[in-house]
């Protein structure tokens, strides 16, 4: 499906492309700009106070900066392609549902990094093959940091589950946040996703990405951490 659309190499070429393609690029850039900022504000910045020692506080500080930096990069691309600034901040856009559940514990932050950053990686992996080159390049630039954030979640959770108390808190955090994750990938048969695939911006359906996510999380949570995943509805 994506192979049907020609590569668009620059912002100038985008402006000369068909209106549907421009709409699709604007929608996805706006979505990433907003959600990266939400992530930094709702999870990363508050987690600095919750981190148990200075090393983890400073590391979390840097992670917050990197997530904010992703927002800045998407926002800059958004400005170049004509998205009004107010549409690229949380004030102007409704957040994903997960952002309505603010952090209560350090263990929750580690689980959010484990789960939500893996979901972000799956989304960005799809963009790494997209037909709009500036967006493809942006995905490739942000990917190493997203991988580190997800690995941070895995490493910290691996440490935490070594004690019975930590194990219990990580399981509670998984029980709280995992059921929200399938919605992160959007609705089944989503019109937006169909548009993205028609334009070659995304390669996979929401369902395919969701299934990929669930499979990878299962390996991490049940295979690696030896914890349980709560039951979730198959379709979002």
């Amino acid at each position, binding site marked *: 499906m994506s192979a049907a659309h020609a590569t668009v190499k620059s912002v100038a070429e985008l402006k000369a492309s068909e209106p549907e393609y421009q709409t699709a690029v604007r929608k996805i850039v706006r979505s990433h700009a907003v959600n990266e900022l939400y992530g930094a504000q709702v999870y990363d910045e508050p987690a600095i*106070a919750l981190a*148990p*020692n*200075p*090393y*983890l*506080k*400073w*590391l*979390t*500080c*840097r*992670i917050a*900066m*990197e997530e*904010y*930096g992703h927002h*800045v990069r998407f926002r800059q691309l958004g400005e170049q392609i004509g998205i009004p600034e107010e549409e690229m901040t949380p004030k102007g856009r409704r957040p994903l549902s997960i952002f309505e559940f603010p952090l209560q514990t350090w263990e929750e932050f580690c689980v959010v990094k484990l789960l939500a950053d893996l979901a972000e990686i799956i989304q960005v992996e799809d963009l790494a093959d997209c037909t709009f080159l500036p967006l493809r390049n942006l995905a490739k630039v942000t990917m190493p940091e997203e991988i*580190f954030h997800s690995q*941070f979640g895995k*490493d910290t959770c691996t440490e935490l589950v070594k004690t019975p108390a930590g194990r219990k808190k990580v399981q509670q955090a998984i029980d709280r946040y995992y059921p929200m994750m399938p919605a992160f990938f959007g609705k089944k048969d989503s019109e937006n996703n169909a548009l993205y695939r028609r334009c070659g911006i995304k390669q996979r359906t929401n369902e395919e990405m969701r299934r990929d996510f669930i499979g990878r999380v299962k390996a991490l949570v049940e295979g690696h951490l030896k914890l349980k995943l709560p039951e979730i509805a198959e379709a979002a």
Partner: protein
Amino acid sequence: MTGGDAASGVLSAFLAEMNRIPWFSSCGTPLSAAETKTAASYVVALGLGELPVAGIADWRDAQALAQRPDWSRAWWDAEIGAEKNLHRQGALHFGEDDVLAALSEVTEAASSIHDSAVAALARAHLHDQGLAKAAAGAASQACHQAALAHLAGAGETHPFALKFRLFSGGRWPLGIVQQRCFVF
């Protein structure tokens, strides 16, 4: 000049200074008398009294020290309290939105400190993404705090000005553990 321009204007020299700093270049070398005095003054200025200052020999020791469970919560809380006071003063003078906009410029400028941390670790024959990011996070926090001090018009004896001076000299102040201030 708008409030936003005024806040950013106050920080323009500071932003230029940030770009000239040899981040982490002195880590591991013995502390000079002047650095020891600056660190001691920083602790006093935070209201934590007179404490001895100690150096740290290498990156792994610094990493281990920053993860010790007996670190001083009073030190961290004193810094957070000072940050809140400065932020309040800055917002009163320039307005909240303009202070945030000016601080965002500092955050964006601080993003390149990570490269200096990676380079400093490489000179020590270490490759540790987490440690480089933690060091960069600490330095970025110090930039944020020093910027707040500038916006609030605090002088050179403010604890955040003193802490930033240590970073400016290529150091990494690691905080207080067991009633001793450690500087790498």
